[in-house]
């Protein structure tokens, strides 16, 4: 019996096992409560939620308008910004690197549309940016017939994959980097997504083809795979590529009894990475020889400031003690959509923040009371 068959049998067995015990529950409810009050609160909760959403959207739009006015425009940046969906720079996309890169005019504009006739989905490829560690592909897709609310291009744990075909016909699967960002615009039945996968910088100047295969559909109680192939043929231009520079740090600190070493900081227009080693940063091996990992105390501290918004994904609470990078006293947004990146056989932990321009006056704040100067 293969694993899929096991899962199917298990699902079926449990489905049959679920009791139909409504009568007993109803008797208890009738005995102790008045049913009409429940409906009242469901209705009011929905109305309140709509009000909150309207208020939130108004605030977001106002903030977006202010941000838009405050950006220093060059004609080139203004032209680039006109070509991508403005929602990529809104709070709906929880990768701060995407927002800052777009606002800085980073990336190659693609502006190609592909129509997936079988699924009635129109795909708009908008922008691509790559450096030595990752590629971000920005696209939207919408449909008139297919409800896309639960449609994801999940490279991390879904059935979706992406591959590269080079000029000489070589096909290379591209692994995910972090989780990517995604937002569903219900009023337009449109998905806005920033995919994050392995770097393709070495193919600059080549006519390449990126192919996205299959859509992951997360229904309320099951996951489905919708077969699809979305191709993108284009010449990868220099404008898509960014460079990454490294600052060697070599600083030590202790947190909750564990010792950590800040090895280096990597700067890219797409992100800022801090590389740590530490006494509890390594893989563990169980009794059967399988390798697994646990959160280090440092990672726990970093995640302490993470907040999860059902609509907008990961956000940050700057008032909670976490791990923050600050430049000239201003905190840089952590990128929680790139969680749990380990390298060097699990002995290095990578903490990701938004890109920074200033590199001299960097301070890492760890929890309450630990401050480490990272720059010169």
């Amino acid at each position, binding site marked *: 019996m293969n694993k899929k068959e096991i899962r199917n049998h298990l699902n079926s067995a449990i489905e049959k096992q679920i009791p139909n015990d409504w009568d007993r529950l109803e008797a208890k409810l009738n005995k102790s409560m008045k049913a009409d009050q429940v409906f009242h*609160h469901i209705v009011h909760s*929905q109305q309140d939620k709509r009000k909150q959403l309207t208020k939130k959207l108004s605030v977001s739009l106002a903030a977006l308008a202010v941000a838009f006015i405050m950006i220093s425009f060059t004609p080139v940046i203004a032209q680039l910004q006109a070509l991508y969906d403005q929602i990529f720079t809104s709070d709906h996309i929880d990768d701060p690197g995407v927002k800052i890169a777009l606002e800085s005019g980073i990336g190659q504009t693609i502006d190609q549309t592909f129509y997936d006739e079988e699924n009635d989905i129109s795909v708009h490829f908008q922008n691509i940016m790559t450096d030595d560690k990752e590629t971000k592909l920005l696209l939207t897709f919408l449909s008139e017939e297919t409800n896309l609310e639960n449609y994801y291009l999940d490279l991390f744990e879904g059935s979706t994959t992406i591959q590269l075909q080079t000029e000489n016909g070589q096909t290379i699967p591209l692994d995910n980097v972090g989780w990517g960002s995604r937002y569903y615009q219900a009023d337009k039945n449109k998905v806005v997504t920033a995919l994050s996968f392995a770097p393709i910088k070495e193919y600059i100047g080549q006519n390449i083809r990126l192919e996205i295969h299959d859509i992951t559909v997360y229904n309320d*109680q099951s996951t489905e795979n919708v077969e699809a192939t979305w191709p993108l043929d284009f010449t990868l231009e220099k404008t898509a590529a960014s460079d990454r520079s490294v600052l060697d740090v070599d600083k030590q600190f202790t947190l909750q009894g564990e010792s950590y070493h800040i090895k280096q900081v990597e700067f890219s227009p797409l992100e800022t990475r801090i590389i740590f080693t530490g006494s509890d940063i390594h893989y563990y091996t169980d009794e059967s020889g399988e390798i697994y990992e646990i959160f280090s105390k440092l990672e726990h501290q970093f995640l302490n400031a993470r907040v999860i918004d059902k609509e907008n994904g990961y956000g940050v609470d700057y008032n909670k003690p976490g791990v923050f990078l600050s430049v000239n006293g201003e905190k840089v947004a952590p990128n929680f959509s790139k969680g749990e990146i380990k390298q060097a056989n699990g002995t290095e932990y990578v903490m990701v923040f938004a890109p920074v321009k200033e590199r001299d006056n960097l301070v890492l704040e760890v929890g309450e009371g630990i401050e480490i100067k990272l720059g010169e």
Partner: protein
Amino acid sequence: MTQSSISQLMLTKAEKGELEIFKDIYEDNKKHVFVIALSILKDVELSEDIMQEVFIKLYQLLKEKEVSNLKAWLIRVSRNTALDVYRKRKHEITGFEESYFDRANYCTDSPVERMVLTKSLNTLEMDERQIVFLKDISGMKHREIAKLLEMPLGTVLWKYRKALNKLKNSLEEVE
């Protein structure tokens, strides 16, 4: 139960009684509650009791405030309630043994399904069983399970793979 389906229920108020609306919520979500309770307690009767308790809690809560993500709330509260029962029972019974929770009364007629369910209850560790049930029965994503169980995502993925392998091996022994 999605927000949209709650809205649909609201629209049908004219035709439906209000308790009937709650019944729809119960029917749509009872699986999630039962599955997480069974994965912890390995006992059908106790899991039924957890279902009753959790839906009464939900009913009371809806009288007071909104529940923005019903499925997430139900899974979290069901897990906590089941763990409370597990800890209490374990504490109450002197010389507790795992077999205490093995008195499941199977409803399926299929010998294969029965065997798979039995093996999943008896072979897997509690956290492995929670991960497999939440992923494959309740349809949660690994990252949602990681958050619920307060484990790194990598550990959830590893335990999920390990659990399925363990289940596969134990079934092959029977075959």
